[in-house]
């Protein structure tokens, strides 16, 4: 489903160069739930961002769902992300000015959908994460766990084949973290969604199919 070949990422300033990722080769199968672990600053998030086409590698090639994305334009990348990928962030990144339903509808705004369809799909997605009774609330009126569930609803509303989650339980206590993890596992099991998750939590990582470890930008496991 995702194939990374010789991915290298270098950050350059006027005086120094930092190698964030070094020759990463990774194949992720369709329907796989993969977790990425490693100490802070080892390049986990950078790798996830590159997989999510949010950032460009300095070298190497990315193939997602049999399409090489290396030479995509801004518009093509946007359309591709919209259709194939869903994102969950550690700090949720919900738009506080919009109600829960509007937040969840967001990916559908960039597709050819009617307002009615958007509302229906967003309501369904919120039902899946158990928040259908909170659609008129604003994010600031919800707990951390609830916010992350809204973020998951937003990530799945467009029915993407891949979900990329950057420390989705990082800001939550263990009970809420487990709740979120259960939702992700269920998504993977029931819908066959491919999930790549960056985490610091061994306990969570053990629940996934495969674990990749990074150290100083290189894959060590």
């Amino acid at each position, binding site marked *: 489903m995702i194939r990374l070949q010789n991915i290298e990422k270098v950050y350059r300033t006027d005086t120094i160069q930092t190698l964030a990722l070094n020759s990463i080769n990774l194949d992720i199968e369709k329907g796989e739930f993969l977790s990425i672990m490693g100490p802070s600053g080892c390049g986990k998030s950078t790798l996830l961002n590159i997989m999510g086409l949010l*950032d460009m590698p300095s070298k190497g090639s990315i193939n997602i769902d049999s399409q090489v994305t290396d030479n995509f334009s801004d518009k093509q990348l*946007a359309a591709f*992300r919209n259709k194939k990928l869903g*994102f969950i*962030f550690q700090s949720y*990144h919900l738009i506080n000015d*919009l109600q829960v339903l509007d937040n969840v509808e967001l*990916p559908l*705004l960039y597709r050819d959908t009617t*307002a009615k369809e958007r509302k229906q799909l967003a309501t369904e997605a919120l039902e899946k994460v158990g928040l259908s009774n909170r659609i008129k609330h604003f994010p600031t009126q919800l707990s951390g766990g609830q916010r992350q569930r809204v973020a998951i609803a937003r990530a799945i509303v467009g029915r993407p084949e891949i979900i990329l989650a950057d420390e989705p339980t990082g800001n939550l206590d263990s009970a809420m973290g487990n709740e979120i993890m259960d939702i992700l596992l269920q998504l993977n099991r029931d819908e066959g969604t491919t999930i790549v998750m960056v985490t610091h939590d061994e306990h969570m990582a053990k629940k996934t199919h495969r674990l990749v470890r990074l150290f100083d930008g290189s894959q060590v496991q």
Partner: protein
Amino acid sequence: MLKNYFKIAIAVLRRRKFFTFISLFGISFTLTILLVMTAFIDKVVNDNYPDKKRDRSLYISHIELRGKESMNSSGLSYSYISRFVNKMKTPVKIAVSSGFGSTNTYVNNRKIVINYKYANAAFWEVLDFEFVEGKPISRQQTDNAERVTVISEDMKKEYFGDDNSPAVGKYIEADNIKYRVCGVVKSLPITSYTLYSDIYLPITTSKTKLDADKGYMGNYSAIVLAENSSDVPKMKKEYDNIVAKLPIPGKEWDHLYSHADTYIEGYVRTGNEKSSGMVYAFTAITLFALFVMLLPTLNLVNVNITRIMERSSEIGVRKAFGASSKTLVYQFIVENLILTFLGGIIGVVLSVVVMYFINDAELIANLNLSLNFTVLAYALFTCMFFGLLSGVYPAWRMSKLNIVLALKA
């Protein structure tokens, strides 16, 4: 999509009340200045009282002589008009009037300044003055040099008092001569300077002998009226041909210019052939408008950048979930247009209030500013211009934000 943009625009405006206030204040205040200015120009240029036949009239009011080292520009002499303008074949009527002069008179030990203007009989036929009472000076009265006058409504009040008794038949004294009032017309603002006066007198009563001065220059102007508007170009050409054949008086001059102008051309003519009044007026208005708009626009650009950058997380999320840079630019421009539109509404309300006070204070007598459709069209156009100008750059800059950096901010 638009509904979503609208929701977020309103939410953002409510969240940052101070920014919103600054932005709205800037927009509405600037717009008010522009609206009052356009209302003023519109009134001066487009108000067609009493020359309602502008579409088939041309105005001849200047003559200019130019030599190597000097130039002389002035109104026309009466003899010039009778020798050259009156010979034109295309016009059906030719109104001739002098510039207004002023004289002091005393009523009950009170000094009154009276502006007077001499006019021929056709003047009353070419122009559609609104008579409050009485009637215009007739051709016969003009031919007989009768001492009669048409006065303005304002002069009636000033000279005869505020009681509503008729002025027709009474006498008004100007320059030590008594004139019998034969009509009272609705007053003009002084901005219609070519036609404005307090009292209008028969041209034949002029103290200076009309044909005495054989030169070209003097204090008169003419309005030539064509049968219909399609004859106007022909009339213009006819006058140009006459001017082309005019002998140049004196060796110090080598060029002579005079034009039959449309109303606007005539209104802004500077009296200097080498610098077109239209260009001057247009440049002056444009520069003023730009200057008035520049500072608030720059301020708005700045405020917008700050406001948009505060929303970098939202930008990151929207991009991650499929918004292209172009879509985001569109979103932020729409938001900005909503803001400008709100400012526009406030600006229109403010303008109405300001115009009310200007009219009420009678800064220029008889000039009643109003917000008409022309002015509203200007307002809408200015709003759009503002919205785009102050929104495009910040939107473009923000749309180029790197997603990862936007999400980290």
